[in-house]
């Protein structure tokens, strides 16, 4: 599968934006001088490096638009005989974001269980009953390992209910 040009443009655009923000942020922190570098000098240099080489990549990309694009490094979707699966990718991405943003508000067991169910049912098309068993086992096992054995204080219940438990 050829490397999707839209992904490349989006990433390069984002990198340019990050570099520009870095330069603005570094300037507000203060670059300092050669003999007394300010807190902004290193972020500034790093942002300039990012800007210059992303622009370099962009120019190279523009020059090579007429050529056949190569598969991305490490992009297994580019391997022979394999295609992309945007639906499953989307399910995984959504599940991860769901777990991340509800980890504290819903508590660890519920947030992780929801994310696992999304990955298994929507992403992997696993039957509901099987997905429920896998989720239950995974939540109990990780709770036992991290909270029980290693004393990691995982948020167990949503904050409003914490007084009751």
């Amino acid at each position, binding site marked *: 599968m050829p490397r999707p040009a839209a*992904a490349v443009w989006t*990433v390069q655009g984002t990198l340019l934006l990050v570099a520009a923000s870095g330069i603005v942020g570094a300037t507000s922190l203060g670059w300092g001088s*050669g003999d*007394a*570098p300010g807190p902004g000098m290193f972020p500034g240099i790093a942002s300039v490096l990012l800007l210059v080489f992303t622009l370099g990549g962009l120019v190279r990309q523009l020059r090579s638009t007429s050529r056949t694009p190569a598969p991305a490094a490490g992009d*297994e*979707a580019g391997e022979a005989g394999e295609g992309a699966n945007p639906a499953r990718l989307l399910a995984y991405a959504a599940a991860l*974001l769901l777990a991340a943003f509800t980890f504290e508000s819903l508590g660890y067991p519920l947030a992780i269980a929801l994310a696992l169910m999304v990955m298994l049912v929507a992403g*992997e098309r696993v039957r509901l009953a099987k997905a429920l068993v896998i989720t239950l086992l995974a939540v109990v096992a990780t709770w036992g*390992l991290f909270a029980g054995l290693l004393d990691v204080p995982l948020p167990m219940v949503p904050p409003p209910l914490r007084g009751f438990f």
Partner: protein
Amino acid sequence: MGVIDALTLGFSVSLSWQNLYFCFIGVTLGTAVGVLPGLGPTATISLLLPLTFKMEPVSALIMLAGIFYGAMYGGSITSILMRVPGEAASVITCLDGHAMARKGRAGVALGMSAFASFAAGILSTIAIAVVGPLAAQLAFAFGPVERAALVLLGLVMVTMISTGSRANALAMVGLGLLLATIGADFVTGMDRFTFGRAELSDGINIALLAMGMFGLSEVLAMADKAGGAVRLLPQPKRLVEMLPNREDWRRSALPIGRGSAIGFFLGILPGGGALIASFASYIAEKKLSRRPQEFGHGAIEGLAGPEAANNAAAQGAFIPLLSLGIPANAITALMLGALMIQGVTPGPKLALDNPTLYWGTITSLFTGNLMLLVLNLPLLWLFVMLLRIPQYVLSPLIALFCLIGAFSLANSPLDVVLVVLLGLAGYALRKADYDPAPLVIAFVLGPIFEKAFRQSLLLGYGSPRIFLERPISATLLACCLLMLSWPLLRRALAAWRARRS
């Protein structure tokens, strides 16, 4: 006391039942925390520090040392099987170790990783015993100026490990350096890019970045494959397929030797560390190899060298700790704290004043490494069994471990959000042909470079000429210049040869 007498005394201490027991506890715990993403050796040693207060100083140090190098091996297991570095120093192992697993050589990769770690452990124990005090003096020669030049050379070399283009690798170096500046500035204390979040004042944890860029991005890459739901990574079926063959040994012997030397040297330098050692070894092997194109696609040299290097570096770090009382990294700093609480002050006179502690600890590195090998080789089949878990179960489980591992770093829900965002960013970067490896390495080297550079400028009264006045730093800078201009020089040389012929 001669070396033989000293080693005899050391073995009489480290082979006592009590110390063997604490060594076993240490390496087992170390391997376990190395496997789990997030909970690294630093956190484990911090948690266990109060336990050591009631122990004999030598037993305490033997157990803590066991955790340290046990974690180096444990971190490689998930790197090889799942591309999730259990520990920061195992980032490089992901590159070729996981590629070997994808080719059905997971057992060989795990076996070679154990053997390389063992060989490096033995070689560096001998080196510590023979050249320890001399090598400690070398650490004195590396001040901030030399360290800044060395790290700059490392940053230039980072681009060589990349599988993408050089421009993209340099862009990733820039991004890595930029991400490394998040947090409080170490000179002024001013917050940089923290967006008012107190949790970001200490910066982004390296384990978060590694889990996001390698672990979660791999999960997303696997999810993006059509028809991957029932796919399994190829597994070895017989014991013989799990062990390295003669060709593997032939290809790995020299990388293990070189990796041990590089790791030992970088381990004794303050700020050197296991990650930098494994990365330096990887670059050296790629440069010296007759098959550089195989690197990143399952070259056994790319696994054996770095694995030897990270273990040798972990042990090399004991030289400045015991001989000079200077910790080379955060883990040895904790060990120094444990010793000082017990009333033992490491330094040049430790070997004379407290030979049982000094030589007992050094010889325990030998017994501990042997224990690790004996412990891990029979478990190879068990680790490889992990590959039998169907992909549709394994992928969500890897994601789950990354999320909980991220939380357990600082018990902060913000870290869970960060690891997911880094994972999504890592996947997008991979998709657009930006290799995340240079980003992660630059992220580690960035703060060391910034600190050393700013200290150097203070030493030189604001003049960067100080870098040229010191022979070691001047040589290292010349190497940087040569490496940066090498493509142009090579082209000019080729043109000159063509004109001449």
